[in-house]
Structures are given as structure tokens and as C-alpha cells.
């Protein structure tokens, strides 16, 4: 990524969208909208002082909503370009309220609330589409209860939990436990406030609040306005402390997730959604199970799937190594249902096809290997580009020209073409690059011939 930012031949237009494409191979005219960041790219040094001071907290899309960012943010820590961006939907200043703290903090004077979208016209000879994929939304599968059971997560969410730079610093804290910890934090804040309040009274009257309250309940101090206020404040304090103590006791038993279940083909190979195989999810789950085991050697993982498709150089060996050294059990069987058991543990009901029995088992965390879905924006993009899509909305290609779209001069690679893993995307990307260069060269040659 760093190389892209530094390469003299690459003009990086991040935070931009394609608006219009005219012309033909060798001579396309492209209109690009550079969305306003409200931060001037040339001035921003990426120091991050602005986001430390920004008062507005927003769920972090890069961490799949598991973490938080500020209204002024860098998409992720090592992001290229490192320019920060203001989220206009959440920024106080851009929502018409008084703020501007980031502008006061920024020593480079890069904040510009008046920045507008800019329209660029670019002339190009060829175009490569690599617009990627969307993670399939598992809430569409009612029996997996993804949006009801907090400890059922998607593979990409699990990836963020595993990451040392993720919201849990790489610890496999369960989402249900993290929610309770956040609740405790909120209660503690309240308790601190109410404690301060009753402390003032205790100092004033040199009596403990408990004693005062006991006397108050017996009917004393009825006419003493100040002490009545004290008793009321103490009652409010107790109302905060009781649930806080209960939650704290509950939190004592929390530990990281050690018993994991991976469910394969969530949305793929499923005639309700996508009949195709997404290709990378089997290896993705094995990798996540191996990494989880590296983090915590007691971790055990069960991978539920119709079959494990370890097709690729070194992949089968990787799968076997996972089984032998990383406590992975492979179960052949499709999961019928996930329910919530005691201690927020998801319970997986499945058919073990080897034993021909329906079984139920509770896990700490269930990870859904979600399908590779076409991007939502691909319909609009394909209209702009004038290219055809296949029935699933991946870019249409043919088997003899696997990176050529239906419009000459426009090529495709990566998951925009079909589901594929990183090595395959890289190989196809090189192929598309070569085809684009070739078609640009040929168009140029044709023009020269016409002139001659």
C-alpha cells in the first residue's frame, strides 16, 4: 500500500467516485467526483492530534462497528493516504452546531469546513474494474439469529477481534461480555458522580450516609430539608450501585472465548441466496482457527461444513496441520439452527452425518463464514461503464478472455469478477494490468496507422 502512495506514476484518488465514462478504447473521458474530506490533503500530515480532541464518537466501519472512531478520522492506522477525513453526517460543526475543535488543534491548518466536492476530468486509454465484494448479510438467514445473539459474529468481525490493532487488541473478548463491560463503565461514571455528591453531605454532617439513611427511614429528619435531600441522593446512589455490583460479579467470570464454532457456507451454496461456492471461506475459517489457537493454546475449534474445499498450493497441508496442531475438529454436517443458551453461549444444532445423529452443542463464540456477495454499487457502476453483469451481478466475462468485460478497453479483476482469494486476485490483477496496457498500445497503433 505504501508503494502505491509513493509511486511517481500513480495518481491516487482516494475518497472519490466515478460519475461518467464517455468515449471508447484508447480514448475514454472519465468524470471523477472527489468527495470533500473537509481536510486539505496537501496540508494534513496525518499526525492525528485532531481526532484525539474531537468530542464526537462514531462506530468504526473498519472494525465492523466493534470499535469506535471519532467524527474526524483516518480510516485505519496505516491507511494510505494518511490524510484524515471529517464524517459530515456526524461532525458537530458540519451539522450546524458550534464546535471546530479540530480546526483549533490542527497545527498544519488543514481543516477546511468550506471544502466542496471537486469534479475531475481524466483522459484514459483503458479501464480496470476491481471494485471488490460485499460481505453477505447473515441476518437474512433467520435460523442463525445473527442479529439476536451477540456472540454470533461474521468472519470479518472475528478477524478484527483477532487483530492486534483491532478493538480488543487481539484478545478474543466476546461481544456479550464487552457490552456488559461498557455498561459497567457507564454505571461507574454515574456512581462516581453520586458518590461525590453524598461525600459532600457526609463531610458536612460527619455522619455516614448509611446511618443517615437508616435514621431517615425511621422517620427522623422529616423537616430537615438538607438531610432529606441527602437521603434522596443516597437512595439514587444505591439504585446505581446495586446493578453495578451485580454486573461486576457477573464480569468476574468473564474470560476470552476458547471454544469456537465456525459455520461454513453462510449464504453461499444455498439456493435461497447464492448457489455458488465463495471459494475462500473454508481456508479463511481454518486460518482464523489456527490464529486463535496461536493466541491461546487452550482454544478448540469445530468447523461445520458440507465439505472443506482446500483447493490451492499448500492449502490441503494447511488444513491437515490445523487439525493436528491447532485443535481443529472438522464436522461434516450443515447447521440447522443457532439458539442462545446460559451465559450468552450460542448453542449450535446440527446433523453429524458420520453418526447420522442430530446433536446440540454450546460454544463461547460462533463465527459465520459469510458468502462473497456482489457489491451494492456494482449496478450503478456497470451502468456508468456500460458493461454487462452476470446473473449474480458479478462482471460478465467469458472463459476464453477471463479479464475482459463486454466493453472493449474495460477489464476486470478480483472479486468484482467472481469470488476469489488474495493470491488469485493478485494473479488476475497482473493479468488485467497486462491486458489494459496491451489494449491501450493497440488503440494507439491503430490511430497512428489511420493518420499514416
Amino acid at each position, binding site marked *: 500500500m505504501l508503494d502505491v502512495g509513493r509511486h511517481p506514476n500513480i495518481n491516487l484518488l482516494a*475518497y472519490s467516485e466515478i460519475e461518467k465514462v464517455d468515449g471508447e478504447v484508447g480514448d475514454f473521458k472519465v468524470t471523477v467526483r472527489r468527495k470533500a474530506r473537509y481536510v486539505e490533503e496537501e496540508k494534513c500530515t496525518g499526525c492525528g492530534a485532531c481526532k484525539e480532541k474531537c468530542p464526537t464518537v462514531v462506530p468504526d466501519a473498519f472494525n465492523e462497528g466493534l470499535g469506535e472512531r471519532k467524527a474526524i478520522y483516518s480510516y485505519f492506522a496505516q491507511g*494510505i493516504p494518511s490524510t484524515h477525513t471529517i464524517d459530515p453526517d456526524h461532525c458537530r460543526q458540519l451539522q450546524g452546531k458550534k464546535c471546530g475543535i479540530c480546526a483549533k488543534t490542527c497545527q498544519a491548518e488543514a481543516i477546511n469546513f468550506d471544502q466542496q466536492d471537486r469534479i475531475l476530468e481524466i483522459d*484514459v486509454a483503458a479501464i480496470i474494474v476491481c471494485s471488490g465484494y460485499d460481505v453477505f448479510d447473515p441476518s437474512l438467514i433467520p435460523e442463525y439469529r445473527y442479529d439476536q445473539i451477540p456472540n454470533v459474529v461474521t468472519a470479518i468481525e472475528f478477524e478484527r477481534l483477532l487483530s492486534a490493532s483491532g478493538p480488543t487488541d487481539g484478545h478474543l473478548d466476546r461481544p456479550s461480555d464487552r457490552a456488559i463491560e461498557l455498561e459497567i463503565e457507564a454505571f461507574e461514571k454515574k456512581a462516581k458522580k453520586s458518590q461525590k455528591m453524598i461525600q459532600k453531605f457526609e463531610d458536612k454532617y460527619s455522619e455516614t450516609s448509611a446511618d443517615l439513611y437508616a435514621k431517615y427511614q425511621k422517620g427522623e429528619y422529616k423537616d430537615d430539608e438538607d438531610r432529606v435531600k441527602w437521603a434522596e441522593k443516597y437512595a439514587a446512589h444505591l439504585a446505581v450501585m446495586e446493578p453495578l455490583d451485580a454486573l461486576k460479579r457477573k464480569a468476574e467470570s468473564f474470560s476470552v472465548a476458547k471454544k469456537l464454532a465456525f459455520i461454513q457456507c453462510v449464504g453461499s451454496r444455498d439456493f435461497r441466496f447464492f448457489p455458488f461456492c465463495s471459494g475462500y471461506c473454508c481456508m479463511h475459517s481454518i486460518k482464523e482457527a489456527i490464529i486463535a489457537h496461536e493466541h491461546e493454546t487452550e482454544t478448540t475449534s469445530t468447523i461445520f461444513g458440507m465439505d472443506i474445499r482446500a483447493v490451492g498450493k499448500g492449502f490441503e497441508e494447511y488444513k491437515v496441520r490445523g487439525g493436528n496442531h491447532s485443535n481443529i475438529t472438522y464436522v461434516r454436517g450443515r447447521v440447522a439452527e443457532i439458539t442462545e443458551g446460559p451465559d450468552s453461549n450460542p448453542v449450535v444444532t446440527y446433523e453429524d452425518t458420520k453418526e447420522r445423529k442430530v446433536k446440540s452443542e454450546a460454544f463461547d463464540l460462533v463465527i459465520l463464514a459469510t458468502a462473497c456477495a456482489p457489491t451494492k454499487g456494482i449496478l450503478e457502476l456497470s451502468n456508468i461503464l456500460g458493461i454487462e453483469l452476470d446473473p449474480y451481478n458479478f462482471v460478465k466475462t467469458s472463459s476464453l478472455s477471463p479479464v475482459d468485460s463486454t466493453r472493449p478497453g474495460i477489464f476486470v479483476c478480483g472479486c468484482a469478477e467472481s469470488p476469489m482469494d488474495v493470491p488469485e486476485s493478485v494473479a488476475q490483477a497482473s493479468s488485467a494490468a497486462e491486458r489494459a496496457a496491451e489494449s491501450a498500445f493497440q488503440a494507439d497503433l491503430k490511430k497512428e496507422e489511420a493518420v499514416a
Partner: protein
Amino acid sequence: MSKDILVIGGGIAGIQSSLDLADMGKKVHLVECLPSIGGKMAQLDKTFPTNDCAI
């Protein structure tokens, strides 16, 4: 007439195509809709089968 190439999407595929073309001496315009390039791959902790860091 321009000899530049436009690459739409700054994930691993877009990054690889851009670098290949740029190394060939082509001028590349890389358009990404999010604030930073990297795409889904940047969200991955490690990549299989070598368990290399994705970033």
C-alpha cells in the same frame, strides 16, 4: 490522446494492477471510494496459507 490507465477500486486487486502498470511506465489513476486504499484485505489480520500479516 492519453495513454493513461484508470483503475477503479483500491483493494488488493486494484493495488496490484496499479503497481504493475506503474512499473511498466504507465501513468495510473487509482480511484477508491473510501478514505484509504487497502479494501477488505487490510481488514484481515493475517493471510493464508503463510499466516503473513495482511498490511
